[in-house]
């Protein structure tokens, strides 16, 4: 039984990581083929360094991902605090459903409707060109927000609110109490929400496709290569992104476990 379950886990891991492994291997291919491995080389990494269209797209993707993650995390945390403070159960439920609907909505519906909204508002102000950096950023914040709330709210609910009252009793202003007491106790979930928002924004295609205008992000640029074949530069770039995210996650996990350990000792 034990061997069986091990095989099962091995299979799952294989299917999860085989595509990435193949891509990493082929990013070191010396030939132009994306199917036949001809030998080891770093040519595609060197080619990437001078490929300005790809680097511009990467820059766009990173800027949008970082900014939308930060803004949606701040907004989402504030929203969670607000939602929890709602007295009436009905209003709280209604607000929660309203935030959850965009999450279940098909991306394509969100994308098209956001585009229509932006173009409509733009034309109201007589703008010839309404789509661009700000619309794609706004769109990303919009679809990130529910995920941040979903990550922060349960943790906030589990936090002992008497701590907050104690802080107030001891002379904290409500704002100070929030930053000194509540925020530290929910920081992990905020960070998780931020990382989730970042990765969601990083690989979004559908919504960006409709809202980006001239500000094309990496997934769109790669998609537009499909009339001709996708160049192995993309493999090299994806490998770098994968490794960067991988290192980031490992770091996050080690920092997290260390922090947990410290907290454990103190408790």
């Amino acid at each position, binding site marked *: 039984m034990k061997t069986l379950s091990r095989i099962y886990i091995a299979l799952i891991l294989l299917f999860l990581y085989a595509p990435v492994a193949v891509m990493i291997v082929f990013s070191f291919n010396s030939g132009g083929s994306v*199917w036949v491995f001809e030998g080891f080389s770093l040519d595609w990494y060197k080619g*990437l360094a*001078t*490929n300005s269209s790809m680097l511009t797209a990467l820059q766009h993707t990173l800027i949008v991902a970082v900014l939308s993650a930060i803004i949606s995390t701040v907004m989402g945390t504030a929203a969670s605090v607000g939602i929890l403070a709602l007295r009436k159960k009905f209003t709280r439920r209604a607000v929660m459903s309203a935030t959850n609907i965009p999450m279940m909505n098909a991306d394509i519906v969100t994308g098209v409707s956001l585009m229509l909204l932006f173009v409509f508002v733009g034309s109201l102000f007589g703008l010839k*060109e309404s*789509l*661009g950096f700000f619309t794609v950023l706004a769109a990303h914040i919009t679809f990130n927000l529910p995920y941040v709330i979903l990550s922060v709210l349960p943790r906030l609910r589990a936090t002992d609110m008497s701590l907050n009252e104690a802080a107030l009793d001891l002379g904290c202003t409500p704002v100070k109490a929030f930053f000194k007491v509540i925020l530290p106790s929910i920081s992990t979930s905020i960070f998780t929400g931020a990382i989730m928002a970042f990765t969601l924004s990083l690989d979004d295609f559908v919504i960006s496709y409709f809202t980006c205008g001239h500000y094309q992000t990496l997934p769109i640029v790669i998609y*537009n290569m499909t*009339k001709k*074949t996708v160049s192995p530069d993309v493999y090299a770039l994806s490998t770098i992104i994968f490794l960067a995210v991988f290192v980031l996650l490992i770091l996050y996990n080690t920092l997290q476990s260390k922090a947990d350990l410290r907290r454990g000792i103190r408790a």
Partner: protein
Amino acid sequence: MLKKIFAVLLCLTLSISLCGCGYEYFNPELEASYTSDLAGTELNVYNWGEYISDGSDGCMDVNREFERITGIKVNYTTFESNETMYSQLDNGGVSYDIIIPSEYMIERLMSENMLEKIDISKLSNYKYVDTSYFNPDTTGLVEGYAIPYNVGMVGIIYNSALIDEPEHSWTALWDEKYRNMSLNFNNPRDGFMTAQMIKGYSVNSTNLAEWNDACELLKSGKDVLQSYVMDEIYGKLETGEAAIGPYYAGDYLVMQEVNPDLKFFYPEEGTNIFIDAICIPKCVKNYEAALLYINFLLEPEIALANAEYIGYASPHTAVINNPDYCYYQNEILYPKKEDMPKVEYYRNIPEEVRMHYENLWLDLKLY
């Protein structure tokens, strides 16, 4: 700790983006001819994906060169089909100064009054343009509204290690001998073209019965076919997963570098030829800069870099006659007069015919 890592990563990305090499292709006089008071303005360019020399693999980075010489910022964006390009243009919300669609889409844009006239008197490099492409009977391009950028023809690629040379006909894709080894296009226009050529119909037929006929022919061959593909054909033919399939001549040259067993021919019934051309849409905001950009693309050095990067045939007279051009007198891209296949361009087709064949295509895919 995290901050340090971020700092290192940031430095790395910055250093990568900074080391773009400066090319010295041009003499100072030529560079001076591109200086203008447009520096600091922006130019929005909308082109096919991978359709300009972009600095990968040590080739010239055309957009960056243009930015360096003129000081105009190029917002370069890409599309993957003429129809996507059309809907972006039509939706509004974005404005473009330069677009590079194919001939039938240009004809449609013309008919809907969406193109601005190009002031060719201001293009010092207009002398390199082959004006024979402006022909109302073949391409439908009108002088002064489009500047040819790339030309290409469709042919059949086969793997000579797997099969003997087939008869030079589209019927090879229907041949029982190649059951489960043959491919066909996964887009309606090109897919129907293969059947229309066999039947001897025009690819621009407005006779619905002819489209039905072509569809029946495609249905009869679907059983033999391995699959309908677009760029997946690269992998399938290079690895030998499939043995025969139609694609664009320029792409064959790339595949052949990977797998030298691959051979190419133009079917005797005739084939499709396409031309992509530079246009200025009505929504243009920076017209003068657009003219400068077009002139820049017509610069022999630039056109050469683009022709070598893209690998399709060039309509640029100085490139074709340049012995240093890596595809100089390449008999696949530039067949001699006697080897030239019969060719037909796609033209803008009336809405109801388009709807009809698109429905037929769906029908075929579900068949």
